[in-house]
């Protein structure tokens, strides 16, 4: 935001605060010069560009509309029979004793009559509810913390519960890379889905996750054929660590459940045709 724009926004914010003081602090709505405020807003409007600045301008206009409404209410109030010179009334209030207030108030006060009474039918309903109510000791049972004995756990158990991983991340990455090279074999490359596709969807996701790191860290690369909508993975014989220093490009590849199902069906059909 330039200095000029910041000044405009500050000025409009001040206009908003001024208008809000009419509602919030009971300031006389006629003390604001509406024409001047409108002229100011019109003057600053061409300088506003961003949506936030436009929103502030809209808020200022809304607050101004509220001030005009307050002015209307004031005129309406003044034209009713309830209107009295407020300073005169305030002066009277300050000078009168509390006995005078009581005398006046009791002449104009007509309290509301309200009664409460239980009926037999409601009592019967209440008794029925009472009988069916479970004792509070049962309803508000506080079980408290369960006492647990300290014990030991093996590394295998921690791995089984997926609290620890068996191998470090690099070990996992290298293992994936070896697997990729084995699957590619004599061919230079392999179709992306042929490598990541597994018997279960979860395993497929794990494989795709590791493949993304293989490519990022220079263990493999991708070959895209957008016209054929094919993606190949090409493993490097040696990791190319300089790849991670170069400017990388993101290649989004969707791995959805439907696509996995489709891959599985195609593989099954291929197997059937071979038989």
């Amino acid at each position, binding site marked *: 935001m330039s200095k000029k724009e910041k000044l405009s926004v500050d000025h409009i914010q001040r206009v908003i605060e001024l208008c809000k003081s009419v509602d919030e602090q009971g300031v006389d709505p006629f003390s604001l010069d509406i024409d001047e405020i409108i002229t100011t807003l019109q003057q600053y409007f061409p300088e506003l560009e961003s949506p936030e600045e436009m929103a502030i301008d809209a808020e200022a206009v809304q607050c101004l509309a509220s001030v005009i409404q307050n002015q209307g209410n004031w005129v309406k109030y003044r034209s009713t*029979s309830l209107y009295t010179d407020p300073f005169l009334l305030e002066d009277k209030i300050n000078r009168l004793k509390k006995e005078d207030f009581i005398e006046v108030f009791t002449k104009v006060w007509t309290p509301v009559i*309200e009664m409460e009474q239980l009926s037999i039918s409601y009592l019967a309903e209440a008794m029925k509810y009472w009988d069916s109510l479970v004792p509070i000791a049962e309803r508000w049972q506080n079980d408290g913390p369960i006492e647990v004995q300290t014990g030991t756990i093996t590394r295998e158990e921690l791995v089984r519960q997926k609290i620890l991983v068996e191998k470090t991340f690099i070990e996992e990455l290298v293992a994936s890379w070896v697997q990729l090279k084995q699957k590619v074999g004599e061919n230079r490359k392999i179709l992306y889905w042929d490598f990541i596709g597994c018997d279960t969807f979860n395993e497929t996701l794990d494989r795709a996750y590791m493949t993304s790191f293989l490519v990022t860290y220079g263990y493999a690369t991708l070959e895209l054929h957008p016209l054929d909508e094919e993606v190949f993975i090409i493993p490097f014989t040696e990791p190319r660590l300089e790849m991670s220093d170069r400017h990388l490009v993101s290649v989004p590849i969707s791995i959805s459940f439907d696509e996995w199902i489709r891959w599985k069906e195609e593989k099954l059909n291929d197997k059937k045709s071979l038989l």
Partner: protein
Amino acid sequence: MTKKAYYDHKIKRATQMLFYRHHMKPGVKGWELKNSLGSDYPKILKVLESYLEKLDLQIKTVFEGENPSGEPTLEDLNKARFYVTVRGGLPEKDAKMMGWRIDDLAGLAAAISYIVSKKGKANREEVEDLLRSKLPGWRVEINISRYIRSGYLGEDEHNQLYLDWRTRAEVDQKAMVKLLLLK
């Protein structure tokens, strides 16, 4: 059922609905009367009021928002709230019977008058300062909270006090202002 029996039954039902509290607030909404008594409930209320007059009671109608100019329509009445109130004023000593100390009632009267003088809304601090000039300081905040709880005053999110439903139902503001100025 004869016409008289029909109206007797309706009037009894209207009496129960108006006198006995059914909700958080006393009184009953117009649409509730319509559901229970039928759309001719204004006529039934008029008949009931003629009975209540002998007991120095009346049925007061408090409209939602501003009072309609001219004769209120059935739609205006359906949205309004109906209360049974005392007809004439009360002797000062009877106010004590209604659970009000004389100081607290004076404070209420002063607060209402002040808010009326400020065109219906006044800052809570200003009202407290006014009350503190004549009442013990420690009672002022308790009293204002009581007035708000009872429904005489309301407080908005900007700490502005305004006249709430009970003041509109129970207090003749115009007469009060007139009497205050004559003092």
